């Protein structure tokens, strides 16, 4: 039960983080479309790092 609440909290946190990254990247691309490639790469890297953190927490929560 408690680990389910924890999982929910993790997902909320991860969602906020991913939203921030995605939104800012969109803004950046809209402002400088020629830098879209670089921004996308950086966005994916940060997204992956965030994802690693969230998944790590989920797995620790399940154990």
């Amino acid at each position: 039960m408690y680990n389910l609440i924890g999982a929910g909290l993790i997902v909320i946190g991860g969602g906020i983080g991913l939203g921030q990254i995605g939104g800012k990247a969109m803004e950046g691309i809209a402002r400088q479309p020629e830098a879209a490639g670089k921004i996308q790469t950086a966005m994916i890297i940060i997204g992956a790092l965030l994802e690693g953190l969230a998944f790590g927490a989920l797995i620790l929560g399940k154990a």
Partner: protein
Amino acid sequence: MVAKKSIKFIASLIFVLSSITVLASDGGHDKKGDLVDTPEEINEYKNHHLKDSHDFHLFTNNASGTSYGFPLPVIVWTKDGLKTFMSSAFHHDDNGDVIVEKGEARLVKLHSKIYELEDGATSVNLDKDHHAINAHRVLDFSITKSVFGILTTGLLMLLAFGGLARGYKKGKTIPTGFSRVLEPLVIYVRDEIARPNIGEKHYRRFMGFLLTVFFFIWILNLLGLTPFGFNVTGQIAVTVCLALFTFFIVQFSGNKDYWKHIFWMPGVPVLMKIALIPIEVLGMLTKPFSLLIRLFANITAGHAVVMGLIAVAYTSREVLGVPGSFGVSFLLTLFISLIEILVAFLQAFIFTMLSSLFIGMAVEEHDHH
């Protein structure tokens, strides 16, 4: 015209594959042929799929009770030496009921693991946590489903890239046949992943590793979406191994500056230098850790979601009827399978990308001022 045809072909292939996945799932019935609707039983089925197993199990015919699939070789080291036989000897039993006698050794399969019975024991006894009391694990070198997947992938890569390399050796500048698909991917890994992250000077040294790891993970992820139920990159042992490769490559190719930044950070006071050592060492270890957790958790979560959506066909049957529940389940599974195809590529990309980023940090040359 050709491109259009192949797109149509791939689309119909995906369609057929995902429908087979729904049909091939035997989660709907337990051994006695009763209907299964409880979350516990679906969970058990899901967990069984996520584990490695000693045979390919496609579906069970409930009327006759026979299972369809094909066996894989079992290679175990027992007290009587090395024993090899096909896993069909266990007759798809997973509860330790079927005892296989090989010389002195008597073997049972329990929860996808092979146990050897102690002397004098006639059947396997379990304690309340379902651990065997009178049997112990054996050294298992079996060609399990995951090992089979890895070998298949290795063979595929050897054939595909061997062909590409032979083409270049002959002096052909433009590859032909299937190599034409591979060349842009290789170039992509080189120009988009390795070059910008590692740097012009050093990237060539690491191309072999990066290309291998990229295609290995990608092909295995895609194999996991077929109805055969491979879950190789969702086995933590596999991802640990892949992350260890990255870890050792980073440590062994790290230059003087890399180690200096870990053990004697330049440009900060002495006390700070000492305080930073444990943090930097921890950072050194968390990098591969996050790599392995990410791949493992993503693939496991993806498979669990697909399994859960297949289970919708059984849990919602009473509300929606048989065609309705199967239709809903099929559409959801198809949708998530398409996303999983994207994830399969993305995870391979991320793993390679972060590996090259870490390698790049280790080989980077700082200007001294």
